[in-house]
């Protein structure tokens, strides 16, 4: 079975439905002006011409899932005795993430380090991750905000993907990256693609050159003292609205919240994404909140991705440069510009870094 294949554009629907035979396919569906990752079903329109508004992270790490459900059981004749029946479900069907981008796929590798490659693996994420095949579409070029090349990625990087597709005249050049990917290549509608390999390589190089790199000096560490100065963050982030758009659109954010919901006799324990930009993220039961103001929260967000995570996972950056947090930020905060300055304060002094007239207000 060939490692290299070719899939004509008009066969995309057929290919997705074939993938859907024994697995649930998550594909970027066009709904109005929005492209959302949905479980593919007949009648949904797949759109590959720009990265989806949301990353496919939800396919493996859903925004809201039931960790366990419980039911109280009581007998009428012994009202003081009540036992609880727990139901846990961790067997998930096979799935395929189709149409994600290389930065989305690399996002999973960031989460894998925390949820899978540890002795305290998360059973839910791990099971779904193992059951999922990731078919990634390489980018023809960057969109507003992209900077994947700056964080070790690229529009054609294969890390995290099982199959990569590159758009070449009238179809897609497929290349299997892993064994799981090879299984996909065996589908009937995939023709032999060796002849397209060169053209695909050329298209990928052209795309890689087009993406901006916000960190020309390379990936050296963030300067500690500047990072720790509250004054710096106060000036940087006055404009931030402290909403959750950046974190909920980020392929690498994995923080979550657990809440129990009970309805008289039944109930469930829910895990849902949480955002470090929300006021409630670090609100303690005592009412104390170590990060009550937004600039402390934003410092934590940047720190987690570019400071704490790299320290813990020997230099790996918890950001794949997809640019969604820049593209969809209500006030266009550019994280790459801030991190660029943190890494090399002298290289390009930004006006927002200028000293304020008096101390912090």
């Amino acid at each position, binding site marked *: 079975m060939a490692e290299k294949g070719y899939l004509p554009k008009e066969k995309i629907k057929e290919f997705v439905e074939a993938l859907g035979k024994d697995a649930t396919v998550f594909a970027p569906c066009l*709904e109005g002006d*929005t492209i959302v990752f949905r479980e593919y079903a007949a009648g949904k329109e797949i759109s590959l011409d720009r990265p989806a508004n*949301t990353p496919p992270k939800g396919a493996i790490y859903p925004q809201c899932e039931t960790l366990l459900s419980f039911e109280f059981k009581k007998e009428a004749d012994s009202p003081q005795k009540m036992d609880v029946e727990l139901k846990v479900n961790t067997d998930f069907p096979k799935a395929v993430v189709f149409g994600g981008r290389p930065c989305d796929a690399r996002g999973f590798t960031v989460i894998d380090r925390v949820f899978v490659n540890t002795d305290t693996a998360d059973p839910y994420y791990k099971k779904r991750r193992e059951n999922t095949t990731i078919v990634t579409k390489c980018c023809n070029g960057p969109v507003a905000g992209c900077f994947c090349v700056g964080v070790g990625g690229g529009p054609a990087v294969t890390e995290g993907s099982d199959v990569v597709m590159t758009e070449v005249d009238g179809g897609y050049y497929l290349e299997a990256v892993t064994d799981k990917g090879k299984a996909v290549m065996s589908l009937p509608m995939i023709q032999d693609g060796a002849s397209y390999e060169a053209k695909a390589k050329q298209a990928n190089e052209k795309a890689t050159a087009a993406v901006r790199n916000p960190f020309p000096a390379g990936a050296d560490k963030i300067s500690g003292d500047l990072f720790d100065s509250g004054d710096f963050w106060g000036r940087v982030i006055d404009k931030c609205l402290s909403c959750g758009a950046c974190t909920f659109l980020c392929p690498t954010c994995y923080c979550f919240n657990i809440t129990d919901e009970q309805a008289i006799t039944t109930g469930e324990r*829910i895990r849902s994404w949480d955002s470090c930009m929300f006021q409630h993220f670090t609100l303690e039961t005592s009412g104390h909140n170590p990060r009550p103001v937004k600039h402390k929260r934003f410092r934590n967000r940047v720190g987690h991705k570019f400071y704490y995570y790299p320290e813990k996972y020997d230099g790996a950056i918890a950001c794949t440069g997809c640019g969604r947090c820049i593209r969809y930020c209500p006030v266009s905060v550019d994280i790459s510009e801030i991190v660029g300055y943190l890494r090399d304060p002298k290289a390009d002094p930004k*006006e927002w870094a200028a000293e304020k007239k008096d101390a912090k207000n």
Partner: protein
Amino acid sequence: MSTQKLKEIIKQVLPDVETVICWQDGFDKLNVTPIFITSPEQADKVVWNPLCAQNLASYLPSQKKKVAVAVKGCDSRTIVQYMQEGLIDRDNVVIIGIPCKGVVSKKKVQKAIGNEPVEDVTFTDGSVKVKTPSGEKTFAIADVCPGKCASCQYPTPIVYDHLTSEAIKSDKPAESVYADVAELEGKTLEERKAYFLGQFDKCIRCYACRNACPMCVCQDSCIAETREPHWITQKLSLDEKLMFHMIHSLHLAGRCVECGECERVCPMEIPVAKLKKKINKEMRDLFDYTPGVNPEDKPPMYTFNVDEAKIKEHKL
């Protein structure tokens, strides 16, 4: 051009305020981002063009000291509503008014140019020219402006201390304001239900619409996330999303100044302002009240008349 006049005014007011809030260039040519000016050099960074869509008045309630802020006509209604509800101290705000002929929705432009990266954006009176790798395209601002500009009734700020150019009058008919609401009202109950449930299904509960909303001053203790009171769960079901958007709409009843920020910032392009505009239409019909127009008005949901002219008892 009024950008030069804007910079002069900013430098003039800077000494007696803590900060001047205005716009500056963003991360690419199609984006502007706010700037909190504290020193005269920063004033040169300021821009004013149809990309300056964001309503900067939203920052005012959180400012502790005296600040100046640049506002368009629609943004000024936010300040008037703050005055009505006592959420800011008018003497602590220097308002730099900018008469505006309509801003641009960057999402509409991106869609029009097929989401290609933008190399350059220039503005001539009434139109915008966008340079992309596959060439240049020009659009009339009226075709790529957000809904609110197509029916703008207040191009010139209602309250201001300085004005960057002569006041201009609105040339849009009053009934165009609620044209989109009327169009939806024309549909059947089922069609509207399907429309709204379909749209709200895309919601990812990131609360950008709430945090961008100038009137949502209690966003840090919003009941969408609290357990005391426990109105909604953290589930991502359609019910909970619908509940959140109803909470937002009902809390804005008689207060929403239609600045359009909620729709502008929604990453999933959900028309969240529709519910608020429908309530505003009812406020106008019921109480002849338009939010954010007259500082002396009282928001209708926090007052009452013993005899309500337009509220009749419903018969079964």
